[in-house]
């Protein structure tokens, strides 16, 4: 079944905002990052995305109901920041439809750029104290901007999963999309990698993000998110992540 997605917004998103996305994937780097960002920037919940293909769940936090895929927004100085945060992994069969829907919406709302926060699983993560962050984009201008701001660019390799599809959709529809991916564990929640990703994001958008609280809560986050990590790994099968350890034929 191909999903039909709906968006509901309590407040309109102003033109030229940055849309920052965190969707469960390897190491849960995306949602750990966006969750911290929402708190740090004091963003307000302004809407949600829903579909019949999303598991029929609703979250309650401090007595208030929340949809599993939520939209937050708010000003940071003069810049409007929009965040799309997901608490559930996207089934592989729905990746294409959601990626297309997100980019369509971004285009309609005249979003300036989409920034994908995530991880790139590395087998030797255990030996890495400070994970590196790489920027990946099909848009040369934004990639150059990231490079000039001191973010390394991803040179070789596959990117798999929903972020790969959003990058492709962005290219097709002429929407600027960039992914900031930090070295991370494949199937353990990785707040250390999220801290690295947020540090790179801070350079890119020019607003300071304090990652100290995130690092202080690292162990607690790793314990708390075990269940979500387990569900995410189960959902990720067939989402193209298996390609990330593959050498493309192009380089053979």
């Amino acid at each position, binding site marked *: 079944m191909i999903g039909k997605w709906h968006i509901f917004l309590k407040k309109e998103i102003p033109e030229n905002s940055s849309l920052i996305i965190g969707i469960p994937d390897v190491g849960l780097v995306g949602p750990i990052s966006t969750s911290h960002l929402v708190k740090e920037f004091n963003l307000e919940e302004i809407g949600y995305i829903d579909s019949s293909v999303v598991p029929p769940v609703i979250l*309650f936090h401090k007595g208030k109901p929340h949809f599993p895929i939520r939209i937050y927004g708010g000003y940071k100085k003069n810049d409007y920041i929009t965040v799309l945060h997901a608490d559930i992994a996207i089934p592989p069969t729905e990746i294409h439809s959601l990626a297309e829907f997100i980019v369509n919406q971004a285009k309609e709302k005249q979003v300036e750029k989409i920034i994908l926060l995530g991880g790139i699983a590395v087998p030797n993560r255990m030996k890495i104290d400070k994970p590196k962050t790489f920027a990946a984009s099909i848009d040369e201008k934004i990639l150059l901007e990231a490079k000039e701001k001191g973010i390394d660019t991803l040179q070789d390799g596959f990117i798999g999963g929903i972020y790969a599809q959003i990058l492709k959709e962005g290219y097709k529809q002429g929407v600027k999309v960039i992914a900031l991916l930090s070295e991370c564990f494949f199937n*353990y929640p990785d707040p250390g990698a999220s801290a690295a990703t947020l540090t790179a994001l801070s350079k890119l958008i020019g607003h300071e993000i304090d990652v100290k609280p995130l690092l202080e809560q690292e*162990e607690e986050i*790793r314990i708390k998110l*075990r*269940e979500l990590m387990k569900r995410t790994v189960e959902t990720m099968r067939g989402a193209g992540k298996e390609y990330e350890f593959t050498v493309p034929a192009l380089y053979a």
Partner: protein
Amino acid sequence: MEEWIRKYFEEVMKEVKRIREEMARIESEIFRPLVDLERKSIEPLYEIHRYSDKIQIYVDLPGVKDKNDINLQLLGNKLILEAKLAKPYSMGDLTVLRGEEFTQYRLEIGLPENIITEQIKARFRNGILEITVPLKVEKYKINIE
């Protein structure tokens, strides 16, 4: 029947049994939460890499400070891990586990019969326990013409 054929079929049947058990375990785990209220323990995330001559197990143990807080035992062909958390941990206001505190990790992993018990090794670093279980395997050198 020749001895090697009989042995070969025995090995195949053992492997089929192991796969069946593994499938049953995975099925039963899908809806099972990673907590054990009776033991006040939580189950860690882990991964198993199977090679022809060894099994490599990685267990994520955030909140465990020292290797001396980890107890690793082999009971029959089950590997049992218990690790003490540096401080009791609760799931906050999560209603289904309200008021529950967890003090340790506990994990049971079934191992095949051909393990070399006395050569099992474990190393704890950066909150991850790495266990290497060597396997008894018959090795033949095949000549290439």
